[in-house]
């Protein structure tokens, strides 16, 4: 997996790291059982603080996407193939999608335009392109 972070972005580095890992899982370049680099190694390769990587890994752990073990390090435990989401994941995701879609509407994007763009993004994810069969 190629990890790209913008060092001078407004988005905090730990958030970028977390987002890139989530995207890699959706794109299929990370699967359940795959390892992530040790905190120190990843921080060294990116030339950033270890706490930043720790924070990103901790966030991913709390979201149930990875497991952190003393021996095993960070391991991905969740991908589209693992099964339907647990608990209120869908509701919490919808709350954030609500804001994101509201932004688009407020900025004047048409409903068809928004749908077309969402569709294009989903089709970029292997498990997200089978819309009809799931709904």
């Amino acid at each position, binding site marked *: *997996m190629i990890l*790209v972070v913008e*060092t001078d972005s407004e988005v905090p580095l730990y958030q970028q790291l977390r987002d890139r890992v989530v995207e890699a899982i959706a794109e299929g370049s990370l699967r359940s059982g795959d390892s992530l*680099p040790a905190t120190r190694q990843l*921080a*060294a*390769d990116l*030339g*950033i603080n270890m706490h930043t990587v720790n924070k990103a890994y901790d966030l991913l752990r709390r979201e149930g996407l990875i497991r952190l073990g003393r021996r095993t390090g960070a391991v991905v435990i969740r991908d589209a193939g693992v099964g339907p989401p647990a608990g209120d994941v869908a509701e919490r995701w919808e709350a954030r999608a609500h804001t994101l879609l509201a932004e688009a509407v407020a900025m004047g994007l048409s409903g068809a335009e928004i749908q077309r763009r969402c569709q294009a993004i989903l089709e970029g994810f292997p498990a997200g392109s089978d819309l009809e069969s799931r709904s």
Partner: protein
Amino acid sequence: MNDVSLVSAIPVVLIGVLQWLRPALVPPTIPFGVRVPRDHADAPVVLAQRRRYRLAVAALTVVATAAAVLAGTPAAAPVAVGAELLVGVPLYLHARARITAVKTEERWFAGRRQVTVADTSLRTDPPRYPWPWALPAVVLTAATVVIGALDYSRMPASLAVHFGPSGRPDRWAAKSLASAYGPVLAQVAATILLLAVAGVALRSRAQLDAEDPQAATRHRGFVLAAARALLVLAGCTSLTFLANALDVWNLAVPPAPVRAALNVVPTALGGAVILVVIIRIGQSGSRIRLAGTTAGRGTTVNRDDDRLYRLGLFYFNPDDPSVFVPKRFGVGWTLNVARPVTWLILGAVVAMGLIAPVVGAMTR
């Protein structure tokens, strides 16, 4: 002028050639230690500074070599090499300052998305330690230990511990565990150290060029070549140690041509291997020839990290946990001076330099 001064001029020429080559050994996006977008790698100012630097280095090398040869004493060569390296620094800094000035004035990074890139597969599927390459060093070291242990009783009562320029012993010590096995301990320590350094090189920080899609492949090639070179070097060092130990123990006296070859071959081989790595691989693998290499001309560029390299020489980044980081202008690594461990390492090196003569005097 004599043969001795001609031979001793070899390192002076070699250093000159390496300094001349240096601008071509670094990644294209870091000419003279200045981070530039890929589409400015061949900017007029970069080409002009490269020409100017090379002209100055060529002149410097000619002068230093002539001085070393004409001085007629072997001691002149190290002085000439030192002068070359010293004068090389302001030449580099001048080129760096000129390129930086144009880069700032023309705002090369304006509107570009500056990123840092990591390839997690380098860590989750790391390059393997090239154990077969460690074999010569391990075998030669083991051989020295075994020979020393088996033949202690056969060694003479008085051991030669220092050899003059002609190869004849000029200082002796009474046979004792210290005088007989001191060099073996040093050999074991040197071998372990070099084997460990090869491991560190293999896992060293990957500073990937965001504009080069094959940067991770280059990094793999670079660290593997560096690790192998270090292991070959360990073998060469071990061979030298073994030859010296046999001299000290007075056990096997090889024929003169073999003895002479033992003096020259390890140094020549070690030097050749390092040269090959530097020229064929380049810093971060920048010179490895790969099929289908395309230069990026996108809006995404490497982060402008010039400010992290103080004076273009010293890497200072308290956030970065790396101790060894890629050298900015040259092939190899430099230290992150913002890390306390760096100062421990430097302190240990200085302490070893101070302690070695004392230990040497005690075992005499």
